């Protein structure tokens, strides 16, 4: 699998020493060189050629080329089969793919959503023409700031008061669309054991994390509220808008891998969709 996917990998190195260096100096450019013989000096030059993640739009590189439907639910250990979701899947979610993890899509299907996955650069008008009941903004790599196409689309969804839920990069893009700033972190959060506090209830949940950028809590405008914070470094982990049913979570509630403590946050997106549908907001918009 490794060789056919052309991924380089190195074993038998002191990962404790490496991790200490990264913690002290921050994430940095690097190079892995493998072969019958390797040249360390050339590898250092190669490592220094990496321009850094800041300003790098990678969502555009990893996104899907075409729109597609996703209808697979979570794997059932009892049935030894993929789930098919509940009921008639009456909620239509348009999921922006900035580098989406499949388990997110499966969890949406489990919760009765029909999911249409669209490329990262899909304009708002095109997404709206699919008549979504809610918009999901996926996780993804790189810096959120250069993703101006997505930020513009999200602003249109917020203005229409469509239910919006963002995870990871999607959360950062929602923050930028709402007027906040994002910052590059020193070494980021990557792991499956990060404590995060729900600021409304005080509850602490152990979460899966993977991000190198974060929304700066100090930059949140008045209509955006902080909802979660990391207990490792107090960085912002969740936000919600008061002007629209839109919220985001920085960590990974879909786990995969990791604990499921915060999986319930998906239910909030579902309730927002159901409330908007009940209030007729979404239906009215469809006619407009």
């Amino acid at each position, binding site marked *: 699998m490794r060789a056919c996917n052309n991924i380089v990998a190195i074993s038998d190195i002191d990962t404790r020493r490496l991790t200490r260096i990264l913690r002290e100096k921050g994430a940095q450019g*690097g190079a892995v060189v493998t072969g019958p013989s390797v040249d360390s000096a050339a590898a250092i030059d190669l490592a220094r050629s990496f321009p850094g993640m800041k300003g790098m739009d990678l969502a555009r590189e990893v996104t899907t080329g075409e729109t597609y439907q996703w209808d697979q639910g979570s794997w059932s250990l009892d049935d030894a089969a993929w789930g098919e979701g509940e009921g008639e899947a009456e909620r239509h979610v348009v999921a922006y793919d900035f580098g989406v*993890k499949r388990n997110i899509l499966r969890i949406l299907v489990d919760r009765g959503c029909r999911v249409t996955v669209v490329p990262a650069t899909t304009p708002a008008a095109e997404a709206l023409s699919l008549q979504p009941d809610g918009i999901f903004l996926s996780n993804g790599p790189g810096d959120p700031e250069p993703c101006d196409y997505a930020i513009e689309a999200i602003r249109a969804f917020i203005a229409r008061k469509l239910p919006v839920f963002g995870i990871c990069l999607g959360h950062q893009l929602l923050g930028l669309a709402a007027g906040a700033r994002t910052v590059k972190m020193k070494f980021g959060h990557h792991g499956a054991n990060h404590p995060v506090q729900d600021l409304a209830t005080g509850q602490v949940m152990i979460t899966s994390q993977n991000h190198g950028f974060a929304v700066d809590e100090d930059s949140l405008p008045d209509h955006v509220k902080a909802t979660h914070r990391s207990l490792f470094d107090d960085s912002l982990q969740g936000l919600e808008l008061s002007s629209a049913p839109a919220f985001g979570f920085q960590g990974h509630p879909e786990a995969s891998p990791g604990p499921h403590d915060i999986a319930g946050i998906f239910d909030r997106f579902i309730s927002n969709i159901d409330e908007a549908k009940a209030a007729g907001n979404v239906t009215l918009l469809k006619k407009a």
Partner: protein
Amino acid sequence: MTDQAVLALEDGNVFLGRSIGANGESVGEVVFNTAMTGYQEILTDPSYARQLVTLTYPHIGNTGCNPEDEESSRPMVAGLQ
């Protein structure tokens, strides 16, 4: 014969080891992940594009891979150490 491998950092630190993947070279941001399980999900997570991922947990590779745990259609990391 086992192929050689080197991980170099931009600060000049060098780690010599053993190659356990493809032969070639890859450049990216070096990060570390502290998860004790789920390396297949980590390697196939598109959020790791252009990153060289250090897995801090030592028991890596002993549970193999299976199609149910792919988070995307292929490994997305720039490299693994």
